[in-house]
C-alpha cells in the first residue's frame, strides 16, 4: 500500500453511514446499468462533474477513495454496493489527482481507476478527466490511459474523439513500438465515426517497415471488420497483401484475420500455400494452431483423397481380373486400362509438403498445436500414416484435466474410425480413482471403443475393478460399457451377461438398476437361452425400487412371458397390488405386461388384466388412461371391435429388433476434430465446414509462385525446366519408363504411374517448358534449390522423384515414333504395376515384357488413341493449356465415361467426341491435327457446307468446329475445313483472300494448299476470332482458277471453350452472375431425353462446355441432392474474352426441367438458352 493510499485511508464504514441515505437512490439507478447502457453513463457523469454541488461532501470523500483497496475481504455484493455508494465522491478526488501536474499523482489515480475496471466497477464518469491525459509524456500513465480508453470509448464516443489526434500522431512516430501501440489502441476504440481513419491507418501499417507493426495491422483487421462489416472488400485487399508477407511474426496474425473476415476466399491462399507450409515451424504457437486449421480446410479443397483407393481395393474382384489379364479379350483390356488409369493415386507434392512440415509440431509443448496437427493428419493423411499422432495425443493425457477432457473427446471419435491406431496405448486409458468423473467416463468410452476379441479379457478385468468404485455415476457408465462390449463382441456376451447378473445382487440399488437395464438390452438379442436370468430378475422386482429398472424387468417378463409361463402371472398379481403407488413408466409397463399375458395366457390372467385396466382407467395421468382405453379396445374382443383385435397378438408380440448400443461419438468426425463444434457436437457460430475431398484435383499450378528476379534463385518453373534437361538427353537409355514408376512409388507409397492426376499435368507442362530453357547443370540447380527453399534433403529427394516423373513425360514428347512405343510401354507398365501390386519392379523385366507385349498392344488401338494425345503436351505451354489438361483428367474420371464402351455402342462415339475427344484433340500437336485420320470428325460434330460441289465446280468444301483450342492464338475458334476435289483435275493454290470482317474480328488463314489431287480431300484448320458474336466471317476462297465468296457463321455454342470448375466454384461464380446476367427458362424435355447421358450429350453437343463434376449422381459425395431432381451443371468461357458461361439444367418432375444460363455477355446467354432449349426439347 502506497503512502498516498495510507494518507487517504479512513474508516470506510463511517463514510458509508453518512452516504447511505443519498446513495441509495442513485446507487440503484447505477446498479441497473453498471456499464452496459451508454445512455445512462453521461447522465451520471454530468451530475458528478459539477463540483459546486458536491464540494461539501468532498471532505469526507477521501475515505471512499482509499477504502477500495482495503475492502476486498468483504463479500462481493456488499463490496459492490459500497463502491457504488461512494463512487461519485471518490471519483471527485481522483479527478483532482488526474488534473494535477505531478505524474506520480496521475499515475496513482490511473492505477486506482484501472483496479476499479478490473473489478468490474463503473468508472465511466471519469472519462473526460482521463482522456485529457492521453497526451501525457509519462509512458506509464499513458499506458494506463490507453487501457481506460479502450474500455470506455464505446460508451462515450464524442469524448473519445478528442483522443484520436494523439493516436494519429503516434502512427507517424519513428519508434515502431509507438506506432504499433497507437494502431492497437486506435483500432480497439469501437467508435464508428473513425472507421475511415482506422481503415487508412491499417492500410498504412500493412506496408510498414517493421514486421511488428504489420502484425498489429493484421490484428486490427478483424476489429475493424466487426465494427463495420461494409469495409470487408477493402480489408480483404489488406489481408491479401499481408498474406504475402514473409515474416513469421505476421503469418499467424494475418491468417487469423483471414479466418475471421473472409474464410471462404480460399483463392487468396494459393500463392502463399508453400510459403506458409515452410514458415510454419517458426511461427509462434498460437499462429501455428490457426494456420494448421486453415490449411486443413484448404487441403480438403485442393487435393485428392489419399485413401481413395481403399474402397477400390476392397472390391477384391479386381485382382482376379488382372491375374487373367492375358486371356481376356480386347474389350476388357481397354476397360482394365481405363480402370488402371482411374485407380493410381499420386499425392500432390504440396499435399506431401504440408504433411511433412506439420509432423515435427507433434512434438510441441503446446497441446493446442499438437491437437491441430493431429486433426490435420486425421483428416488429410493416408491411412497408413495417421498412426503417428496417437503417441502425441496419449502424451497430452498427462496434461491438465481440461486438456485431457478435450483430447479424450477427440480420441473417442478417432477410435471409432481408426481403432488400431490407439490399441498399443490401451493401458494409458486405464482409469485412476483420482480422475474426475467426466474424465473417467470419457476414458471408459475410449476403452469400449478399443475393445476387440483379443483385448476384451483385459478390458473386462479392468471394468470389474471399476464397478466397485465409489463414484456411482462412473459405475453406471461402466455397466453400460460392459453392455456395449457384450453387444459388439459376440464371444464375451455370455461372460458379460453372467457378470451383470451377479451385479443384480449388489447392495447398491443404482448398480442393480443399471444392470437390469443393460441386461434387458442384452437379453433382447437372444432370449431363448436365458429364461433363468429372466426368472432371477422377476424375483428382484420385490427389492428394486428404481423405476427404470422395474419397468425394464416388467417389459422383459411381458416380452418373454412364454419362457416363464408360471412366474409371469404371479408378477402381474404383485404389480396389480402396488399399481397405484408406482411411477408412471412402471404403470405403463404393468399395463403392457397385462395385455401381453392376456393374449398368451388369458385363462389365468383375464381377471387380473381387467383389474389393472380398470385401475388405469381412473389414473391421474392421461397417458396411462389413454393407454388403458386403447389396450382394452384392442385386446378384449367385443362386438364393436373391428379387424384390429384379431391382430392384437401380432401387434404386441411382434419380434422386436434388438437395440444397437453404439457410441455417442459415432459420426462425430464430420465436424473438424479439435474444434468447438466437435466438442459440443453441434455447429458453433462461425464454424467452417470441413469440405469433402474434390472428385478431381483442381489445378495445382495455382500454387506456383514467381520468385522475383532480384533473388538469386530461379523460379520454381525455371528449375523444373532445368531438371528436365538431363532426362531429356538420357532418354536414349530407355530407362525412363521403369525408373519413373519405381521412383514415384517410393515417393508416395502407392502404386503410381506417370499417367495420373496432377502429377502428370505438371510434368507435361514443365516438360514442354524445357524446349526453350537454358542449359544449366543439374547439380547447380540443386544447390540453388537448397539455398532458396531451405528444405534440404527431403525436398531434394522429392524433386528427384518428380524429376523422374517428368522424365518420362519429356521423353514421350521427344519424338513421334518413339512416343507411340512409349505410350504402349506405359500401358504395359501400368498393367504390370497393378498386376503385381508390388512396390519393387525391376526395370529389366519391364523391358523384356515390353517386347513381348508389343504386338498385343499394337492391336490395342483404343488405348493408344486415348493415350497418345494425352502424353503429348502442347508445344507452347500457357496456363490455359495446362488447365485444359487438368480438366481432361477430370473428365476421364467422370463416370459418365465409364459405361460408354460397354453398354451403348452408339452413344459412346458421340459422347467421346463431344467431350473427350475434342479435349484430347486439343492437346495434340499441330502435326497431328494435320493428319486427319486421328481426328476423323465423328458423327456428332456437325459438318457445315461452305461450298457446294456444284457451285464450287467440283470443289466441295465443308467445315466444322473441331472444338480444339487454336494453338497459334488461344482467342480464336478453330475451324476445321475439309476440301474435297471431285473433279478429274488437280486444284491448285487453295487459299483465302480478302476477308471482310466485322470490326474486331480476326482471321488466321490456313497455309496455302499447293495441290489437291483429283478425288482427294484434305483438311486444314484455320482460326477465327469471332469476338464473341455470331456474326459471320466472310472471305474469299481462291483456287488457281476461281474465287468463291463464302462465309462462316458460328453457332453460339462454338464460341466457347470448356472451363473446369468445381461445384463450389461454380456456385460461387454463379452467385456473381445474377440479375441481368442470368437467363432462366422452363422447358419440357424431349422424348429421347430420358437419362442423364442424353441430356449431358445434348448440351455438350450444342455448346462446347464441360460438365461440372460432382453434380448429381453417385460420384457426388457432398450433400447429395434428392435423387428425384438431379442438377446438371456445365461451364465454359467464351473464346475471345474469356467470360464465364455457366449452364444449369435442373430436372423437375417427369419431363420438366429448368434451364439457367449465367453469362456476362447477355446476347450470348440468350442465344445459348435458345439453342439448348431446342436441343433438349427435341
Amino acid at each position, binding site marked *: 500500500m502506497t503512502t498516498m493510499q495510507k494518507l487517504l485511508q479512513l474508516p470506510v464504514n463511517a463514510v458509508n453511514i453518512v452516504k447511505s441515505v443519498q446513495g441509495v437512490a442513485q446507487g440503484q439507478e447505477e446498479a441497473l446499468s453498471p456499464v452496459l447502457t451508454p445512455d445512462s453513463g453521461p447522465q451520471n457523469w454530468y451530475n458528478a462533474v459539477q463540483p459546486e454541488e458536491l464540494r461539501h461532501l468532498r471532505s469526507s470523500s477521501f475515505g471512499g477513495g482509499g477504502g477500495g483497496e482495503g475492502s476486498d475481504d468483504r463479500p462481493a455484493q456488499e463490496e459492490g454496493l459500497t463502491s457504488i455508494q461512494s463512487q461519485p465522491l471518490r471519483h471527485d478526488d481522483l479527478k483532482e489527482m488526474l488534473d494535477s501536474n505531478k505524474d506520480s*499523482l496521475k499515475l496513482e489515480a490511473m492505477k486506482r481507476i*484501472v483496479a476499479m475496471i478490473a473489478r*468490474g466497477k463503473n468508472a465511466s464518469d471519469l472519462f473526460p478527466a482521463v482522456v485529457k491525459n492521453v497526451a501525457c509524456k509519462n509512458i506509464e500513465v499513458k499506458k494506463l490511459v490507453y487501457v481506460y480508453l479502450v474500455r470506455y470509448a464505446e460508451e462515450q464516443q464524442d469524448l473519445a474523439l478528442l483522443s484520436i489526434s494523439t493516436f494519429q500522431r503516434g502512427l507517424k512516430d519513428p519508434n515502431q513500438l509507438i506506432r504499433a501501440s497507437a494502431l492497437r489502441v486506435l483500432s480497439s476504440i469501437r467508435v464508428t465515426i473513425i472507421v475511415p481513419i482506422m481503415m487508412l491507418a491499417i492500410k498504412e501499417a500493412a506496408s510498414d517497415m517493421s514486421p511488428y507493426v504489420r502484425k498489429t495491422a493484421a*490484428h486490427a483487421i*478483424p476489429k475493424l471488420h466487426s465494427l463495420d462489416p461494409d469495409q470487408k472488400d477493402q480489408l480483404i485487399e489488406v489481408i491479401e497483401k499481408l498474406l504475402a508477407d514473409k515474416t513469421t511474426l505476421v503469418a499467424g496474425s494475418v491468417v487469423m484475420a483471414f479466418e475471421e473476415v473472409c474464410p471462404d476466399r480460399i483463392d487468396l491462399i494459393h500463392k502463399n500455400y508453400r510459403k506458409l507450409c515452410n514458415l510454419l515451424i517458426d511461427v509462434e504457437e498460437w499462429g501455428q494452431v490457426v494456420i494448421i486449421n486453415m490449411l486443413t480446410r484448404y487441403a480438403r479443397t485442393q487435393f485428392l483423397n489419399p485413401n481413395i483407393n481403399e474402397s477400390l481395393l476392397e472390391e477384391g474382384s479386381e485382382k482376379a481380373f488382372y491375374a487373367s489379364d492375358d486371356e481376356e479379350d480386347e474389350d476388357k483390356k481397354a476397360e482394365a486400362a481405363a480402370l488402371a488409369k482411374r485407380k493410381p493415386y499420386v499425392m500432390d507434392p504440396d499435399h506431401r509438403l504440408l504433411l511433412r512440415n506439420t509432423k515435427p509440431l507433434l512434438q510441441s509443448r503446446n*497441446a493446442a498445436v499438437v491437437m491441430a496437427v493431429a486433426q490435420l493428419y486425421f483428416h488429410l493423411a493416408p491411412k497408413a500414416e495417421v498412426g503417428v499422432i496417437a503417441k502425441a495425443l496419449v502424451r497430452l493425457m498427462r496434461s491438465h*484435466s481440461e486438456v485431457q477432457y478435450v483430447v479424450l473427446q477427440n480420441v473417442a471419435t478417432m477410435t471409432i474410425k481408426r481403432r488400431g491406431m490407439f490399441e498399443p496405448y490401451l493401458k494409458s486409458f486405464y482409469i485412476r480413482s*483420482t480422475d474426475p468423473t467426466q474424465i473417467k467416463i470419457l476414458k471408459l468410452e475410449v476403452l469400449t471403443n478399443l475393445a476387440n476379441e483379443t483385448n476384451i479379457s483385459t478390458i473386462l478385468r479392468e471394468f470389474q475393478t471399476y464397478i466397485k468404485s465409489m463414484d456411482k455415476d462412473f459405475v453406471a457408465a461402466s455397466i453400460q460399457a460392459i453392455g456395449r462390449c457384450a453387444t459388439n463382441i459376440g464371444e464375451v456376451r455370455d461372460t458379460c451377461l453372467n457378470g451383470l447378473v451377479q451385479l443384480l445382487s449388489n447392495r447398491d440399488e443404482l448398480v442393480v438398476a443399471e444392470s437390469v437395464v443393460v441386461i434387458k438390452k442384452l437379453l433382447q438379442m437372444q432370449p431363448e437361452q436365458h429364461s433363468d436370468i429372466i426368472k432371477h430378475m422377476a424375483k428382484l422386482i420385490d427389492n428394486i425400487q428404481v423405476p427404470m429398472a422395474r419397468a425394464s424387468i416388467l417389459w422383459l417378463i411381458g416380452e418373454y412371458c412364454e419362457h416363464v409361463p408360471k412366474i409371469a402371472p404371479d408378477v402381474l398379481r404383485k404389480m396389480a397390488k402396488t399399481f397405484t403407488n408406482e411411477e408412471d413408466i412402471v404403470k405403463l409397463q404393468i399395463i403392457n405386461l397385462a395385455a401381453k399375458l392376456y393374449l398368451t395366457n388369458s385363462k389365468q390372467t383375464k381377471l387380473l388384466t381387467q383389474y389393472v385396466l380398470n385401475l388405469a382407467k381412473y389414473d391421474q395421468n392421461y397417458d396411462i388412461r389413454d393407454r388403458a382405453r386403447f389396450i382394452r379396445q384392442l385386446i378384449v374382443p367385443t362386438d364393436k371391435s373391428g379387424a384390429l383385435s384379431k391382430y392384437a397378438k401380432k401387434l404386441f408380440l411382434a419380434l422386436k429388433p434388438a437395440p444397437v448400443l453404439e457410441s455417442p461419438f459415432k459420426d462425430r468426425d464430420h465436424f473438424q476434430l479439435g474444434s468447438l463444434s466437435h466438442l459440443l457436437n453441434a455447429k458453433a*457460430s462461425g464454424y467452417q465446414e470441413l469440405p469433402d475431398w474434390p472428385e478431381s484435383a483442381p489445378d495445382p499450378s495455382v500454387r506456383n509462385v514467381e520468385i522475383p528476379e532480384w533473388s538469386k534463385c530461379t523460379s520454381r518453373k525455371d528449375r523444373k525446366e532445368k531438371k528436365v534437361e538431363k532426362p531429356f538427353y538420357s532418354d536414349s537409355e530407355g530407362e525412363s519408363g521403369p525408373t519413373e514408376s519405381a521412383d514415384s512409388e517410393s515417393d508416395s507409397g502407392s502404386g503410381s504411374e506417370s499417367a495420373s492426376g496432377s502429377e502428370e499435368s505438371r510434368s507435361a507442362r514443365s516438360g514442354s517448358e524445357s524446349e526453350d530453357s537454358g542449359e544449366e547443370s543439374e547439380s547447380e540447380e540443386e544447390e540453388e534449390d537448397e539455398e532458396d527453399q531451405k528444405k534440404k534433403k527431403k525436398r531434394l529427394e522429392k524433386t528427384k522423384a518428380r524429376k523422374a516423373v517428368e522424365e518420362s513425360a519429356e521423353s514421350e514428347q521427344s519424338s513421334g515414333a518413339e512416343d507411340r512405343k512409349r505410350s504402349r510401354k506405359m500401358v504395359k507398365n501400368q498393367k504390370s504395376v497393378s498386376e503385381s501390386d508390388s512396390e519393387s519392379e525391376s526395370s529389366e523385366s519391364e523391358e523384356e515384357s515390353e517386347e513381348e507385349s508389343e504386338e498385343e498392344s499394337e492391336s490395342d488401338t483404343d488405348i493408344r488413341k486415348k493415350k497418345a494425345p494425352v502424353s503429348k503436351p502442347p508445344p507452347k505451354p500457357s496456363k490455359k493449356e495446362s488447365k485444359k489438361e487438368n480438366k481432361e483428367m477430370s473428365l476421364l474420371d467422370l463416370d459418365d465415361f465409364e459405361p460408354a464402351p460397354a453398354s451403348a455402342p452408339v452413344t459412346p462415339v458421340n459422347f467421346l467426341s463431344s467431350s473427350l475427344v475434342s479435349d484430347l484433340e486439343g492437346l495434340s500437336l499441330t502435326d497431328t491435327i494435320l493428319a486427319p485420320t486421328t481426328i476423323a470428325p465423328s458423327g456428332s460434330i456437325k459438318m457445315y457446307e461452305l461450298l457446294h460441289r456444284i457451285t464450287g465446280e467440283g470443289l466441295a468444301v465443308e467445315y466444322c468446329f473441331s472444338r480444339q483450342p487454336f494453338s497459334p492464338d488461344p482467342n480464336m475458334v478453330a475451324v476445321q475445313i475439309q476440301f474435297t476435289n471431285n473433279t478429274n483435275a488437280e486444284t491448285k493454290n487453295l487459299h483465302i483472300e480478302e476477308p471482310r470482317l466485322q470490326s474486331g474480328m480476326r482471321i488466321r488463314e490456313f497455309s496455302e494448299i499447293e495441290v489437291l489431287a483429283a478425288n482427294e480431300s484434305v483438311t486444314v484448320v484455320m482460326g477465327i476470332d469471332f469476338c464473341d458474336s455470331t456474326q459471320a466471317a466472310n472471305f474469299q476462297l481462291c483456287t488457281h482458277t476461281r474465287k468463291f465468296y463464302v462465309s462462316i457463321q458460328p453457332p453460339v455454342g462454338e464460341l466457347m471453350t470448356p472451363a473446369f470448375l468445381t461445384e463450389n466454384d461454380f456456385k460461387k461464380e454463379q452467385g456473381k452472375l445474377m440479375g441481368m446476367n442470368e437467363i432462366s427458362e422452363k422447358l419440357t424435355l424431349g422424348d429421347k431425353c430420358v437419362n442423364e447421358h442424353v441430356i449431358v450429350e445434348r448440351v455438350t453437343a450444342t455448346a462446347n462446355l464441360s460438365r461440372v463434376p460432382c453434380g448429381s449422381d453417385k460420384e457426388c459425395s457432398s450433400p447429395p441432392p434428392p435423387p428425384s431432381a438431379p442438377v446438371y451443371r456445365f461451364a465454359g468461357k467464351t473464346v475471345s474474352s474469356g467470360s464465364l458461361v455457366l449452364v444449369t439444367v435442373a430436372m423437375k418432375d417427369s419431363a420438366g426441367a429448368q434451364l439457367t444460363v449465367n453469362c456476362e455477355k447477355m446476347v450470348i446467354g440468350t442465344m445459348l438458352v435458345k439453342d439448348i432449349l431446342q436441343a433438349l426439347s427435341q
Partner: protein
Amino acid sequence: MIHSLFLINNVGDLFLEKHWKSVISRSVCDYFFEAREKAGEPDNVPPVIRTPHHYLINIYRDKIFFVSVIQTEVPPLFVIEFLHRVAETFQDYFGECSETTIKENMVIVYELLEEMLDNGFPLATESNILKELIRPPNILRTMVNTITGSSNVGETLPTGQLSTIPWRRAGVKYTNNEAYFDVVEEIDAILDKSGTTVFAEIQGVIDACVKLSGMPDLTLSFMNPRLLDDVSFHPCVRYKRWESERVISFIPPDGNFQLMSYHISAQNLVAIPVYVKQNISFFESGSSGRLDITVSPKQTMGKVVECVVVTIHMPKVVLSASLNATQGTYKYDPLTKILVWDIGKLNPQNTQKQPNLKGSLSLQSGAPKPEENPSLNIDLKIQQLAISGLKVNRLDMYGEKYKPFKGVKYVTKAGKFQVRT
C-alpha cells in the same frame, strides 16, 4: 477468439474481469455458477459450457476458475492452453497464482492481460518479452516505487519482440554464467491388490535454469537417447537436429523454463521402487474395520527413498481411525475422509523393521459396510536417480567465449502412483 475473462474464486466470488472486445455483462457467469453447482467437485465442472449466446471455456487452477467467454468457433484446446499460460505467467510474476496475490497486484495483472491478448488473439505470451514490457514486482522495487512514485511499467521500450529469437531478449549479462538442468522423472503406476503391476510408465521432464550472457547456443546430449520414446520440446529446440543426431540443440530463453518432456518407451520395464503390502477390511457387524499397511523399499538402485507419503481417500462411512505407525505420523481428517500417513525415509538396511501402519477404523453405526476398499496413493522421491537410467552426457556451448558453470541433477518422484485394494 477470447472475448472476456472472469476470475472466480473457490467460493464463487467474481474478483476480476477483463474484456478484449466489447463488454459482456458478468451475468453470463450465472451459467457457469449453475454448472459449478451441478458438478459438485470443482474438478467436475465441464471445461466447455454452452450458453444461449456464448460459450464458456474454463479451467480450474490453484483454486481459481479462469472463465473465458467465447462467441465463435475456436479450438477449445487453444483457449484452455492459453488460460493455463496466463496462470503460469501469474505464477512466474508473483511466485504463486492465488486470489490474494492477484488482488494485491491487480494493476500488473490487468496490464499483463492487456499485453497477452489483442482482440482476443494471443499477442505476447513469452515470459521474457512480458517481463520487458511489464516488470515483475519485488520488495525492493515496491519500496522504490512507493518513494519515487513510479510503477512497474517498463520505461524503456522492449526490443525482444523484434529480435529473431522471440523467446530471448538481447543483451543479457551475468557475472556468473551458469546453466542448471534438472532431470525429473515421475512414475505413473497402477498396482493391483496382489502387488502386480497393472500399468506403469515413466514420464520425465528436463527443467532448466540458464543464466548465461549474450546469445549462447547450447547442445545437450544423452548417453542413452534411445530410451526416449516420445518427446516434446520448448519451441527453442531445433527439432531437425534431434531427428537426425539425437541431440538437443537450442538457444535458451533467459532464466527458468522447461526444456523438454519425454516418455520412456513401454518396452523398458519400469522399476517400482517400493513394495506395498496392504490389508484393509471392513466388518459387516460391529461397525468397524481393520487396516494394515506395510511399505518396504524395492528396486531402488542403492538410493534412499525419501518423502514417502501414503494417502487414502476413505469411504464416507469411516468416522475415525485409531492406528499405530511404527514409523512416521498419520493423520485422519474426518471431514474430507482423507487418511495421510507420512512415513519419511525408507531405510534400506533395516529389512526387519519396515514401516507399518496398523489399527482399527470405526464406521458409522448402522450404515452398510463399504462395497469397495479405498485405493492407496503413494508419493515418494528419490534423489540422484533417474529411474529410467537416462543420463546426460555433455553440454556444449557455442557462440560465446566465457566458460559457464554447468550442473545436472536427477530426481525421481511418484507421479500418479496408485495401489488398488
